[in-house]
């Protein structure tokens, strides 16, 4: 009982400190992880086994960590090292691509292909945002896309705010389509043993349908704003996409590595290569081909996020070991009775609403043991709950300016150029779109799995 109370208190303190931003979140999660090991596992539980299981260091030694010989899904607890290695590898690859000028080249290339017309740019950028976010973290996607949008808005004299809001939403939506698109999906996939193919054929289908509807929704929301164009009669200078390429050699190499990553991810269920292996391979190849720039790339990696994940997994591991999460699962189970459809609705909407206000990464990590317990107790297919959790956490984050990291970054890029996006302006368009997509997800899950 004491261990449960302490674990709960540490978790709540971690959440409050993360939200308050008084201390950087990686320091908070590592400190709380340390407290969980010493106070809960050590002093209260006297359990070296719990510490070892949460640190999960033995997982490196297992074949399944690097190469999945059988197709059966395997659940893991504690620090999810596969997620950590994969994210680190992808960060290295994305840094290399950014240095080579890939993202700016792609954005400008598409703008040029649609002859710098505002509405076609708006639609193609939404699609591009979604597609890129399927494979690359949405922060990077939005960082480049929003910057090019602001640049084009100055040139073509349109308000970049509607386009940036739509791009943010589509990046979060695209991220929900694949296992590697959004951190909650990586955690869900690696913790519960689902493949890239599993995600794309389940959440991917829902995201695809939603994207079409969302494009229509944003088009009708913003078509008038984007058509307001003042003609000053002067000759416009259009940026050349080729100028974005810093080095042709680096550009070609980064394109090849990116293509390689996509192929490896799409086929990983067939090849047996795990995301840990793919992440390690991509990271190592990026560094080997970077030559003298390797150290610069390593220094640019967002190690704080990686440390945050490690601490977070330990804290959630503590909740799991002390069985607090089973209590939460019991409460959800009680609230829904025997009605599994109601349970799906609860998991989906609670995840969406929570993710709209708090970081969806700790939320998803916390909910994984909960849905595992729910599936066992109710005899419901775990995968259905996994897709529900993924859609809820990924999409819910789009509703508010603080719901997802991409939102914060996109709003910041616009603001640095003098285009302020407050809560009112953002939520006016993004919140209805979020409700729309969560509804689509709910209906899709009911139709397909019940």
């Amino acid at each position, binding site marked *: 009982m004491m261990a449960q109370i302490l674990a709960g208190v540490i978790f709540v303190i971690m959440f409050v400190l993360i939200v308050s931003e008084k201390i950087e979140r990686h320091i908070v999660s590592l400190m709380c992880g340390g407290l969980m090991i010493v106070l809960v596992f050590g002093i209260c539980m006297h359990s070296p086994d719990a510490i070892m299981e949460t640190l999960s260091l033995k997982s490196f030694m297992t074949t399944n960590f690097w190469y999945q010989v059988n197709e059966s899904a395997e659940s893991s607890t504690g620090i999810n090292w596969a997620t950590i290695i994969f994210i680190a590898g992808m960060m290295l690859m994305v840094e290399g691509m950014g240095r080579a000028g890939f993202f700016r080249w792609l954005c400008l290339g598409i703008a040029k292909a649609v002859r710098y017309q505002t509405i076609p740019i708006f639609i193609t950028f939404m699609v591009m945002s979604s597609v890129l976010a399927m494979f690359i973290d949405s922060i990077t996607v939005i960082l480049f896309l929003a910057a090019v949008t602001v640049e084009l808005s100055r040139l073509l004299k349109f308000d970049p705010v509607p386009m940036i809001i739509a791009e943010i939403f589509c990046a979060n939506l695209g991220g929900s389509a694949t296992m590697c698109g959004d951190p909650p999906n990586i955690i869900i996939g690696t913790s519960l043993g689902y493949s890239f193919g599993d995600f794309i054929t389940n959440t991917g289908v829902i995201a695809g349908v939603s994207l079409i509807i969302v494009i229509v929704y944003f088009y009708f929301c913003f078509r008038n704003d984007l058509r307001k164009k003042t003609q000053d009669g002067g000759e416009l200078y259009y940026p050349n996409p080729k100028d974005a390429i810093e080095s042709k050699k680096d550009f070609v190499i980064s394109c090849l590595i990116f293509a390689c990553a996509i192929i490896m991810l799409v086929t990983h269920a067939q090849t047996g290569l795990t995301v840990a292996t793919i992440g390690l391979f991509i990271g190592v190849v990026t560094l080997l081909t970077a030559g003298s720039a390797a150290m610069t790339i390593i220094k640019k990696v967002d190690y704080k996020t990686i440390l945050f994940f490690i601490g977070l997994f330990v804290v959630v591991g503590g909740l799991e070991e002390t069985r607090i999460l089973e209590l939460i699962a019991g409460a959800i189970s009680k609230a829904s009775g025997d009605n599994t459809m109601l349970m799906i609705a609860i998991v989906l909407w609670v995840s969406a609403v929570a993710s709209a206000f708090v970081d969806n990464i700790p939320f998803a990590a916390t909910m994984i043991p909960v849905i595992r317990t729910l599936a066992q107790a109710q005899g419901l297919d775990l995968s259905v709950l996994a897709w529900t959790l993924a859609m809820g956490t990924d999409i819910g984050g789009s509703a508010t300016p603080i719901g997802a990291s991409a*939102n914060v970054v996109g709003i910041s890029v616009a603001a640095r150029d003098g285009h302020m996006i407050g809560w009112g302006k953002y939520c006016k368009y993004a919140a209805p779109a979020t409700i729309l997509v969560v509804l689509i997800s709910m209906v899709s899950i009911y139709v397909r799995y019940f």
Partner: protein
Amino acid sequence: MERQLIISVGREFGSGGHVIAEELARRFELPLYDSNLLENVALEKNVAHEGLQKYDEKPKVKLFYRTVRGHSNSPHEHVANMQFDFLKREADAGKSFVIVGRCAETVLKGNAGLISIFVLGDKMAKRARIMEKYGITEDEARRMMEKEDLKRKSYHNSHCKGKWGDSRNYDLSINSSRLGIDKTIDMVEYYIRTRIEHEA
């Protein structure tokens, strides 16, 4: 070459700090930056001034904003930073000016031409001045004073390490209720001229 002179004026609401800054700008023949600073920023960014104004000199509510990899979604923070950058650029370009508020005593700290002043006042005197200026009751003036001072304090302290109104952060802190606004201006002018002579 003429000495660069930047006079930053922090002030309590109702203390007459703005009037003092205006008169100092006139006496030293310097441009005055106050809320018009944002107009310059808006012009520079080619955006509507009104879009930025509502976030000017206001603190952010932490619960509603997040920072990711150095990016913040707080418009208040961006508006403040734009003004700070503008002030730094002007100061680095060797320009002289008077600036009201905007954490200038901290933002421009280290600039040889900076003279920082904080104007405070007695509650009674400030209240009487607010009542007269805005034609409101004593109670309304008290509430207005408390609200505005809290806003300025929160804004300042969220951007600076030093506390708002702490005399250690300013070259000169002066209570305008002691000498009255006019004599305070004379006294501050004397202080600035003495400083200029002393540092010449």
